[in-house]
């Protein structure tokens, strides 16, 4: 995975709150291998139900959405759909915990902003597309002319910037894992399954 620091592109607003992962990618698409690309599945039913959905009118890199974005199912396919569609950053007042973790693991920024900042942005942006610039280092973004600060866990920031992969990171701790495992098995014999 490649890291990134600065992002320039267009942004659109999705004013709804609770845009859950079932909406982001309906379950019926999830048996596809990733290699075929998940971009078309993004908000599939929502887009089909609404003529001229903002997503279909521009090719945004940035989304601004209502609270509790990505709640629900742990399906990482929701992040695949966003990333394959070309989205690199989502701004919202809150995110589903599992979604936020999945996002970082795929280079997608899930940036937390104040609820009133989100409301102002969403109102100003309307249904159109606007310019956006996101800076991971400073933790600031300019969207639709508003200069906003966003919250991002420092660990996640580092992962996004460097494109770090957890499996590689963990390899350097393999001795500690071995030591822990030996002690854990010895002191908790009941944790070893009988079947």
């Amino acid at each position, binding site marked *: 995975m490649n890291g990134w620091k600065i992002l320039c592109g267009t942004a659109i607003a999705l004013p709804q709150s*609770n845009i859950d992962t079932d909406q982001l990618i309906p379950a019926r698409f*999830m048996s596809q291998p*990733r290699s075929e690309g998940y971009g078309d599945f993004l908000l599939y039913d929502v887009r089909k139900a609404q003529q001229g959905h903002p997503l279909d009118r521009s090719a945004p890199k940035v989304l601004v959405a209502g609270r509790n974005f990505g709640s629900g199912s*742990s399906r990482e396919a929701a992040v695949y759909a966003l990333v394959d569609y070309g989205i690199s950053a989502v701004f919202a007042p809150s995110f589903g*915990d*599992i979604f936020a973790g999945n996002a970082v693991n795929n280079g997608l920024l899930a940036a937390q902003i104040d609820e009133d900042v989100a409301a102002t942005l969403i109102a100003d942006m309307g249904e159109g597309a606007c310019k956006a610039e996101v800076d991971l280092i400073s933790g600031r973004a300019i969207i639709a002319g508003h200069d906003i600060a966003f919250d991002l866990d420092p660990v996640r920031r580092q992962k996004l910037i460097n494109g770090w992969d957890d499996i590689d990171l963990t390899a350097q701790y393999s001795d*500690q894992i071995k030591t822990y495992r030996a002690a854990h098995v010895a002191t908790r014999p009941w944790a070893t399954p*009988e079947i």
Partner: protein
Amino acid sequence: MSAERTLLDKLWAAHEILCREDGTSLLWVDRHLVHEGSHHAFAKLADRKMTVAEPALTFGVVDHYAPTRAGEVAPDIRRMIKTLGKNARAAGIKLFDLHDPAQGIVHVIGPEQGLTLPGMLVNCGDSHTSTHGAFGALAFGVGATEVAHILATQTIWQKRPKTMRITFDGVLGAGVTAKDMALHWIAALGADGAQGYAVEYAGDAVRALSMEGRMTLCNLSIEGGARMGMIAPDDVTFAYLEGRPAAPRGKVWQAALADWHALHSDIGASFDRKEYFDADTIAPTVTWGTSPEEALPITGHVPRDNAAKNIHATLEYMGLEAGMPLSQIAVDQVFIGSCTNGRIEDLRMAAKVLEGRRTVVPGLVSPGSMQVKKQAEEEGLAQIFVQAGLEWAGAGCSMCVGMNGDLVEAGKRCASSTNRNFKGRQGRGARTHLMSPAMVAAAAVTGRLTDVRPLLEGRI
């Protein structure tokens, strides 16, 4: 730091291999459960030419795509099930395949087989892994990249969540269940109310719940935003587990009990947040909207738009009118099942309502596991469902998510014992109302959302 520790503190400390300078911990995973959705993770592993680190601690089960009715199985569903089988066999992972007498929904069979035990860390690539916390385990759902990481290392990187204790004092009324407790707190705190917290449930009304009820409560933690829910184990927990196939026996069981008795929050332990609810005041609760937070007592009315919340689009999707009594909402069909409410006790409650009555709308009952199915048939529950006019199906996720083809048609309204009323969750355009299995049974009998309490009089 104070000497008094929370249950989370104890579980965390027992699994922490190391804590990086940035505050992220590497945790040991005691049980890793995988289902058909793991194909992305296995593909990642194969890409890196890596193998499964601890196959003996990893268990596979067919549930999301499991066919629950006779007939042709679509090729992509067959492929998903076959892929899991192939991956499990190649890695040497025990698989509860279709037709295995222990097959069922991952969060039902984990506890049922004794794979889930107090004091464990349980992970699964599924958000309702919070269910297993009912045993006093640290249990949370993870995404595909994390599944791959666990497969490769049997560990997971995690930041320690904040702690929230939700206390339910008092006694639940007759016909009011753990499902109602969960919908009640989620409606009060919001679908993101517990985001960033590990929830511990406490109080007399929680202690009084069976393991089935506790699992329902912990299961729904994620619908309130909490990745984990947990309940300190007690004699109810131990009695449930003793003798389960994978549970320890003899001396090891005794050693386990000694360890497990320490698994509770110490008196005086401090929580980042505490919430209190009164169980006596909780009524049977139903959802009217497209988020689990949009829930109200069955005696209530569909809300109206207000300045704080525009619900116009939601009401349009749901086909409801603002201000109408919830008890006037007519349903087209019902569903009883899922990892939330597909256990034996759930089926017993529904059967209590349905016994000797006829349903006026069609419906599907899918037991949470083959074991639950067998038991329900032995107890005569299956017969009650069929005589009432419902379809008795096989075990799996079924109509909770519709991946196996058990779908609610667009525009149809379903009273459902599941966990998500999201747009399109049960099928494109489907309208879902969440409620307890007893309430689903009541809706089946009357054809509309109905207070189950009068229907249960003299029966419980």
